[in-house]
């Protein structure tokens, strides 16, 4: 049987059709959309709750402590201390909901309220164009990648609103810093995905995933990350994604310990929770985009694992990236603001630009016969590695290796 028509592949769509099938035709589309929206919000809100727990557990493990492990599920006394703290997100949620919502008297009341709402709304919008499975994509757009980044660009506005409306100089300054960071890293983020679009020849996410289908020698998947330019672009994309979603080591915008949480200073209770929800949503969306652009979307890694449904593959890849985000947070110290901007403008942007050339070289040499393919690989790898070494050397000259005066 064809892989795209297996029962498990079509089951989610068939279920939705069965649910809405009895409605009159004009309502059909409307009900389908409602179900999709509810599913996206429900699934990703659950993922957000579990991620907060996973983050605390993993951070705890890395720091050699157990993390939250006492909270059981509500009304089930016997689960207390047994369920790996599975009730923790629920307890956090209830705490956030019942906390007092403080709005400073001098604050711009409307904008202060609007900022978290706008931020969350725009971050949810980005989920619409990610292909979650072979047949599962909420909105099929011809310019899907552009839509994704257009929706993401509006989050900067929300951060400005939060910082300005708080009527607090620390909030405003921190919002400016956050904006500087977001604008700086948008450039390498966009530049690193241009080669993917260039080689796939389409802006549609479905088309990009389809272009990564198939296997070389029947075993190596055609994912973009397995090519020299794709690997470089993937690394640049992930670093920029870390910065775009305010994740450690680029979490300067909030930096709880130094900047009193930056533009979030004057937020409390559920609005604060909304900001965090938006941050995690942004992280999930960018990871989903990374999976789509570089890790073959819902395509299986090896041909004989084809029987696993496509959406399971997507979820597995997404979770891998998310866990690596948490892992990175546990491993690296925070960057200083000048180091942060220097990394973006002097290192990532030139590398991403060079990578465009590498991708062009790769595309132009695609038809080389036989052994000349080896020269294609060598050339492309050299185009990736040599600029990396040259720019890296130049940037760290006189700075690295660091000499420690007080610590051994």
């Amino acid at each position, binding site marked *: 049987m064809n892989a795209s028509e297996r029962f498990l592949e079509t089951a989610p769509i068939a279920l939705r059709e069965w649910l809405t099938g009895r409605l009159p035709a004009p309502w059909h589309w409307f009900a389908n959309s409602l179900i999709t929206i509810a599913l996206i919000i429900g699934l990703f809100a659950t993922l957000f709750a579990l991620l907060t727990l996973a983050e605390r557990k993993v951070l705890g493990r890395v720091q050699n402590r157990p993390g939250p492990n006492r909270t059981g599920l509500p009304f089930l006394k016997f689960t207390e201390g047994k369920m790996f703290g599975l009730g923790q997100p629920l307890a956090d949620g209830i705490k956030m909901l019942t906390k007092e919502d403080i709005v400073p008297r001098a604050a*711009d009341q409307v*904008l202060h309220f609007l900022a978290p709402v706008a931020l969350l709304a725009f971050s949810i919008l980005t989920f619409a164009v990610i292909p979650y499975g072979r047949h599962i994509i909420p909105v099929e*757009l*011809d*310019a899907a990648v*552009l*839509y994704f*980044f*257009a*929706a993401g*660009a*509006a989050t*900067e*506005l929300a951060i*400005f*609103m939060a910082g*300005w409306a708080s*009527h607090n100089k620390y909030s405003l300054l921190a919002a400016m810093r956050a*904006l500087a960071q977001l*604008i700086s890293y*948008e450039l390498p983020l966009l530049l690193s995905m241009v080669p993917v679009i260039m080689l796939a*020849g*389409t*802006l*549609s996410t479905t088309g990009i995933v389809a272009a990564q289908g198939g296997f070389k020698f029947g075993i190596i998947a055609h994912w973009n990350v397995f090519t020299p330019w794709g690997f470089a672009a993937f690394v640049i994309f992930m670093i920029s994604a870390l910065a775009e979603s305010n994740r450690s080591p680029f979490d300067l915008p909030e930096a709880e310990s130094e900047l009193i949480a930056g533009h979030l200073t004057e937020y409390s209770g559920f609005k604060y929770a909304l900001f965090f929800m938006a941050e995690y949503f942004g992280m999930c969306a960018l990871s989903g985009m990374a999976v789509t652009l570089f890790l073959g979307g819902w395509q299986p890694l090896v041909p004989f694992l084809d029987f696993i449904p496509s959406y399971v593959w997507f979820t597995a890849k997404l979770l891998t990236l998310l866990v690596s985000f948490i892992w990175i947070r546990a491993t690296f110290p925070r960057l200083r603001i000048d180091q942060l901007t220097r990394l973006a403008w002097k290192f990532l942007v030139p590398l991403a630009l060079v990578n465009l050339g590498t991708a062009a070289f790769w595309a132009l040499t695609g038809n080389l016969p036989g052994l000349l393919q080896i020269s294609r690989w060598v050339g492309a790898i050299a185009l990736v590695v040599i600029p990396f070494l040259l720019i890296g050397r130049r940037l760290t000259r*006189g*700075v690295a290796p660091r000499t420690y005066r007080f610590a051994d």
Partner: protein
Amino acid sequence: MIALIVIALLTLGTAAVAMSLRNLIHSALLLVGSWAGIAAFYLWAGAEFVAFAQVLVYVGAVSMIVLFAVLLTRRSRADLNLSPVSVRRLVGSAFSAAAVLGILFGAVIGSPLPQQSPGTATTTVKQLGTTLMNAHIAGVLIVGVILTVALIGAVVLAANDRDYRKEQR
């Protein structure tokens, strides 16, 4: 048709309120709403690519320039509130608005539009890219050069030649 009227009301309404407000930041944010309305109009007209580009450029980037310009040129929060309209300002704004309207109106009336039945053949992004890269490549290159010059100019203006590394030692 109803969608078009709603979009037009949203665009013009936010623009009108933006002009009547005394708080510059509020005006700037409402202007962003107006730009988003224009993007919605493009989307309604079937120009998907242009709509998303409009959001990316105007809502994402130009809005930031406007907001930063407002914040950098005002000395305090009280300064953000503009003084009420004077006769001179009213006359000046009326003149400039009339001039812009005249130019736009002339351009719209004067440009020949190909007769096409509505709803046929929406342009794909690929077609758009091919057209830009073949027929209009000169325009794309000129825009690219101008933007690069602007960027380098900004760097030259902002950079100072102090050697921070030497000072630190």
